[in-house]
Structures are given as structure tokens and as C-alpha cells.
């Protein structure tokens, strides 16, 4: 079934560890995004990609990095996790050509750094 998948759903990790949050979509969408969601706060765009080998930083400064080697895969990496990285991370995708097309979101990864 065409969808967007995020793994893991929950992750508890110690300070200083390197982590990668996975995001894959099977809808053939060109555009992919990472948002950070905290209670009572705006969803903040931290990274986006408009196609393979294209990545940009979003509006919110983030210490994470992303890569887009394949259309369907857009992983987010934290080289050294800190408690300030504790948050919900949402991955989304949208079709390439339609200006008004909606974003399709994954279920999110809730990250806790102890």
C-alpha cells in the first residue's frame, strides 16, 4: 500500500549517541520534509528535499543532517544526541508538480534523550 513510514515510533537514547530516524515513502513523491513538533508550539520545518541529491535546511536551526540518495528514502541523523533534541519528529512528502497538493505525514518518531 502506498504510504509514508517512519521508524522507530519511539526511541529513548542516552546523551552523546548517534541516531538515525528513518523515513520512507512508496508514493513516488519528489518532495520530502522533516518537521519538529512540540506541545503547544508550531510545527517547525527543519529539513526539506525537492528531489534526489537535493537537501535544504528549514526555518528552524537544527543540529541534525539529512540525505536523499533515493527518491523514497529521507533519513534524519543526529551525530550526538542531547536532551534538547527530545521532541516528536514528523516526516512528510508531497507530489512534485502540484502546487496545491497536500503534505502526507508519517506517524512520527517520538525521541527522548536522557
Amino acid at each position, binding site marked *: 500500500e502506498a504510504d509514508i513510514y517512519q521508524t522507530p515510533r519511539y526511541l529513548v537514547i542516552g546523551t552523546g549517541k548517534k541516531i538515525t530516524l528513518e523515513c520512507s515513502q512508496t508514493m513516488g513523491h519528489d*518532495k520530502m520534509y522533516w*518537521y519538529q513538533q512540540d506541545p*503547544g*508550539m*508550531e*510545527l517547525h520545518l527543519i529539513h526539506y528535499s525537492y528531489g534526489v541529491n537535493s537537501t535544504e535546511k528549514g*526555518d528552524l536551526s537544527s543540529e541534525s543532517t539529512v540525505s536523499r540518495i533515493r527518491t523514497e528514502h529521507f533519513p534524519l541523523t543526529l551525530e550526538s544526541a542531547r536532551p534538547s533534541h527530545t521532541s516528536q519528529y514528523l516526516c512528510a512528502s508531497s507530489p512534485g508538480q502540484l*502546487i496545491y497538493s497536500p503534505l502526507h*505525514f508519517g506517524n512520527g518518531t517520538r525521541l527522548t534523550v536522557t
Partner: protein
Amino acid sequence: AQRVTQPEKLLSVFKGAPVELKCNYSYSGSPELFWYVQYSRQRLQLLLRHISRESIKGFTADLNKGETSFHLKKPFAQEEDSAMYYCALRGSSNDYKLSFGAGTTVTVRA
């Protein structure tokens, strides 16, 4: 710079009562505006977009460029409308990124 403001963090209404969620934006050009909804234990999903001028699940939203607002309304709230609602803005026809507000949590009581 573009910004979306949702002044109400929490909204509680009785079943059958009207509900209105406020959304104001700041953007110098012609924006595209959306409402997204997140039901309990479900993923964030599109509710409606202003360009479609549609009514979804009884909800409507009108873009008022003079007041820079895009309020979401429903005349008779139902318990299944309880959810988190986000207003979102896309600022340019060449820019596919969405800016979201802080969200409003709606609780519909029986």
C-alpha cells in the same frame, strides 16, 4: 517572512454548538492556506484548503485577505471533531514548504 498565528490553544464546546477556530497570517503576497487535523492516535492529515472552496466533514474556511485570516468553522460540532487543528500557509507558488501555526486542541463535550 511568513507567520501563522492560532490564538487559542484550547477550545471546548458542547455537541451541537457552533465552533470557530481562529487563524491569522502574515505574508506580503497571495498565500495558499490549509487546515490540517490530527485525531487522537492518528497522523496529521489535510482537512481542507482554501483554493478548493470545499466543505469537509461540515467544516468550511474562508480566506479574508483584508483581515489576513482563515478561520475554520462548523455550525454544529460533533464529538468526533475532537482533535488538534493546525492552520498552515504556503507563501509562494514556487515554494512548496508549509508554515504551521501552534495548533488548537478542540474538545467537543456531550
